[in-house]
């Protein structure tokens, strides 16, 4: 049955009005840069949805895990080979790290330096993700009541996961390092040179260096440089070696250390924040802890 002309007009008018309202809301939200009424609405929605999301996550987690396990059977062989290769790489890194640690301890003793303190973390569990396939966010069950504030780093046993970008009393939203709007200041372990890693939505991260003087080899570990996140957190490994381009620029890709699709428990680094850094060191960015700052790593 075809609608009447008058009916079509009303429907079209409503459609155009709703599109205009959406456009205006989006424009205001972009201009507010995640603050203002949009942020308040997001907080409210999160508070309302969290109990339901947690309930459904709790009930369905075992079933979903079973189904997901069956779906993953085909990829287990590749996964096994990848893990064996990873174990070998980690063993080599461990040997190297132990030698380096001994050397650092000797140098600390010689220079009378205190070793860096363990940075406090809060363990949190992911209970939900973004509502769209293009979202690179996760929701965790720890919030301001646990000491979580915006900007803090989120890590797991493999390395940097992302940063906290929205906090309610008992929950927080984490923006992953794969988000195109997240950039991380990094240091390449092999060359000790700094650069910026940014996400691309999925897949490998993009490493950009602007004052490179050495070739970056494939497999080189990339770690946070302490400018925004605590220094020394593994971000990933360079996937292909890259030579310096004109103007000492260098671009390559980095395989994230964390397995984004399999995140479950994470740690929020509550004892270190760029906001704290601003309070304690108003004249400049926070100095990294002594191990990195003193340049003892050869």
């Amino acid at each position, binding site marked *: 049955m075809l609608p009447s002309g008058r009916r079509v007009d009303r429907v079209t008018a409503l*459609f155009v009005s709703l599109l205009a309202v*959406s456009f205006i809301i989006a424009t205001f939200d972009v201009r507010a840069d995640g603050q203002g009424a949009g942020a308040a609405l997001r907080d409210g*929605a999160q508070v309302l949805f969290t109990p339901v999301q947690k309930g459904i996550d709790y009930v369905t987690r075992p079933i979903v895990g079973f189904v997901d396990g069956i779906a993953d059977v085909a990829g287990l062989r590749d996964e096994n080979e990848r893990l064996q290769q990873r174990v070998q790489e980690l063993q080599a890194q461990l040997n190297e790290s132990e030698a380096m640690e001994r050397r650092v301890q000797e140098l600390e003793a010689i220079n009378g330096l205190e070793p860096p303190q363990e940075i406090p973390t809060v363990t949190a569990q992911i209970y939900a993700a973004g509502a769209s396939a293009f979202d690179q966010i996760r929701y965790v069950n720890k919030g301001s009541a646990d000491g979580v504030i915006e900007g803090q780093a989120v890590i797991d046993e493999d390395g940097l996961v992302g940063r906290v970008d929205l906090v309610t009393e008992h929950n927080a939203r984490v923006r992953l390092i794969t988000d195109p*709007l997240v950039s991380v200041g990094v240091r390449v372990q092999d060359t000790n040179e700094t650069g910026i890693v940014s996400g691309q*939505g999925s897949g490998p991260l993009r490493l950009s260096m602007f004052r490179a003087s050495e070739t970056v080899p494939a497999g080189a570990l990339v770690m946070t440089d302490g400018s925004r996140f605590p220094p020394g957190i593994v971000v990933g490994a360079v996937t292909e070696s890259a030579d310096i381009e004109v103007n000492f620029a260098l671009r390559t890709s980095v395989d994230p250390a964390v397995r*984004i699709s399999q995140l479950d428990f994470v740690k929020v680094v509550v004892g270190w924040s760029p906001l704290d850094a601003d309070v304690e060191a108003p004249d400049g960015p926070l100095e990294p802890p002594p191990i990195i700052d003193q340049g003892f790593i050869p």
Partner: protein
Amino acid sequence: MRARPVVIALGLVILAVVLQTTIFAPGRIQPFGAAPNLVLLVVIGCARYLDPEPSLLVGFTGGLLVDLLSSSPLGLWAMVLTAVTFVALKVRSRAADGPFIIAVGVFALTLLGQVLFVFVGTLFGQKTIEDPQVVRKLVLPAIYNVILAAPVLWAIRAALRPSQRIWAQ
């Protein structure tokens, strides 16, 4: 405008949003790295069984809910789901032609919604088009939505028009 079907439709959209962010979240059920776009499917289903104006309002509200629980600016998904609802309203009379046409329609509308989001997301600085797996994220949800279409549309019809047969207009 009868209020009861609209309230039920909004409830279905809320349920879809919750399931999308939990069961179909990364690390849960995501075959080949993608999940169905359940909210889009429910909005398409509501557009099939509700009157035009309530359908548009349900699409818009569902989009706003998705926006509130995602990292994109508020209004982007509202814009996309409103547009998809409008197109669904224009073609819904063809659904009486049978299940194959419905499957094609669900695929095309889901793909349209995803492509629109990539387009407006890029316009609003979200860099969605730079995603190396953008094609996969566009196509797989459309395929999954076709697979889920029969049970989801059946459930929507049962909730909104309990006295009608499933393929009836």
